[in-house]
């Protein structure tokens, strides 16, 4: 299977501080990868480098065979590299239906049209309906986003990313800020992601990581210190030292 997403020897320094050191990751369609690491490990910088919000000092980002290192964030999205946000970024005055319709029309190059209404476009409405149903948002489709629960907003973030039909999806802490009672719905949504989609999830919640990921990458001080299966990550001495120490102790104490 050919790789859909490759990060090759990515480096970035702010002044004298190296925040990303020689990071390389290869992902295939269908991969479920979790990127973890303690605070300050460089996860956010890594996401910004990959999405094009920061320019790396050296290294390459390759998406579906195309080198996208030198192009900006917006064209990267159009080529299939889509992200969700750690803190929900939605349009408070718009409804979930409008959000998804806008994303579907944007993907199909129809947001330049100055006349016509999305509700009159049968294909758009059909796709929006499918997405709403898949994420369990159909009963609040026409409520303003400002009026729906935070857990539902997180689900809409995921639906919005899917509406863009990405090849690679970066999920930045999809369950952050969601009350415990709602996390099963987020997990169900994650389990239902398209099977050919490569997903890289940045997450703090280790339970979620272990349930979702088939592969875990640990970042510490800007460098990858572990890349392997979830079963092995807790056994790795460097990971325990850098990151999981307190967590593993908590678990054994409990």
């Amino acid at each position, binding site marked *: 299977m050919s790789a859909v997403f490759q990060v090759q020897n990515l480096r970035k320094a702010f002044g004298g501080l190296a925040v990303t050191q020689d990071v390389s990751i290869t992902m295939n369609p269908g991969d479920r990868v979790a990127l973890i690491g303690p605070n300050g490990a460089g996860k956010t910088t890594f996401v910004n480098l990959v999405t094009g919000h920061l320019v790396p000092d050296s290294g390459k980002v390759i998406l579906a065979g195309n080198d996208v290192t030198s192009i900006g964030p917006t064209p990267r999205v159009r080529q299939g590299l889509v992200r969700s946000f750690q803190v929900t970024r939605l349009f408070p005055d718009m409804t979930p239906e409008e959000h998804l319709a806008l994303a579907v029309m944007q993907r199909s190059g129809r947001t330049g049209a*100055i006349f016509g209404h999305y509700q009159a476009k049968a294909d758009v409405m059909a796709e929006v309906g499918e997405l709403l149903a898949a994420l369990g948002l159909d009963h609040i489709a026409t409520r303003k986003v400002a009026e729906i629960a935070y857990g539902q907003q997180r689900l809409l973030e995921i639906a919005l990313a899917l509406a863009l039909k990405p090849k690679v999806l970066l999920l930045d802490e999809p369950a952050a800020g969601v009350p415990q009672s709602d996390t099963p719905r987020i997990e169900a949504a994650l389990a239902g992601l398209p099977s050919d989609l490569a997903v890289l999830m940045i997450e703090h919640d280790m339970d979620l990581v272990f349930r979702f990921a088939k592969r875990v990458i640990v970042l510490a001080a800007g460098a990858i210190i572990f890349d392997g299966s979830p079963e092995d990550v807790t056994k790795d001495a460097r990971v325990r030292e850098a990151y999981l120490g307190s967590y593993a102790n908590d678990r054994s104490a409990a």
Partner: protein
Amino acid sequence: MAAVEQSSVATPAAARPNWLVRDLIGLAVILAIAAIGYFLFPNNLALLTRILAIALLVLSIDLVTGFCGIATLGHAALFGAGAYAAGIAAVHWGITDPLLMVVIGAAGGAVAGLISGAVILRGHGLAQLVLSIAVVNLFHEAANKASAYTGGSDGLSGIAPDPIFGMFAFDLWGRTAYGFAVVLLAVVFILLRLLTRSPFGMLCRGIKEDPIRVRAMGASVHGTLLKMYVISGLVAGVGGALNAISTQVVGLDSLSFTLSAESLVMLVLGGTGSLYGALVGTVSFMWFEDFVSAANPFHWLTIVGALLIVVVLFAPRGLYGSALALVDRFRGSGK
């Protein structure tokens, strides 16, 4: 819960006819008020026509400020460009067909929109506001210096538009001009209602609420805003051309900072982001200004200022926005 689900299931089917009907009602109300104005103030049609021309400018500001969140104190540049384009076409090129003059005015406004948009959109927040003031002042100065075409500080006079369709001559009482203005405003208003609900209009609303999210959806924020600026220029240009046709002169005041600031005030007074607010704001501000300045020629500016403070403090969403919120509250308590 059951009630919520029921209502949300019912909405999508009912949504489309709903907004169409609402727009037609809105149009009917506008035309009715225009007719009432005609019969109540038959000797003041020049003022009413001027109100309609300025309303087009305020609508045009609403497009960029209310729908896209761009701050501007220089929008008269687009209005003035339309007025001068139509005026110069009539005086220097002999194009005196009023419809053609409106088209030329719209084109002039669009070009001015492209130029000022390209400059203003470089900045954000305060810088954007300062750039917009600089742009309108530069336009003003350019018109002042190019006196061979614009008449400089004396203004451009001698605009003599032909009868509309060769049938309706512009009369001394301004009846034809007023009718022409009402038709132009109604057509533009309906087109803008369609525009704001279109996919492009939705994208603009998205940019106003969260440009980072719009970029993350793969859309170009700058390109979209520039396009809206050009459309806004078209609308302001129609207003400028209408003013040139109805008054038969174009002065430097049509390109002034004062007009830019006043029209932004009218928009805030009426309420942003609905188009109706722009109309309500223009009519109330200009009518109030006319009424108060006649009643008290010495203190009228003070009274206008006091009114604005009252509205901004007690109805921050503007007259239309606040009225709408009140209606919603009554409906909510009625349920």
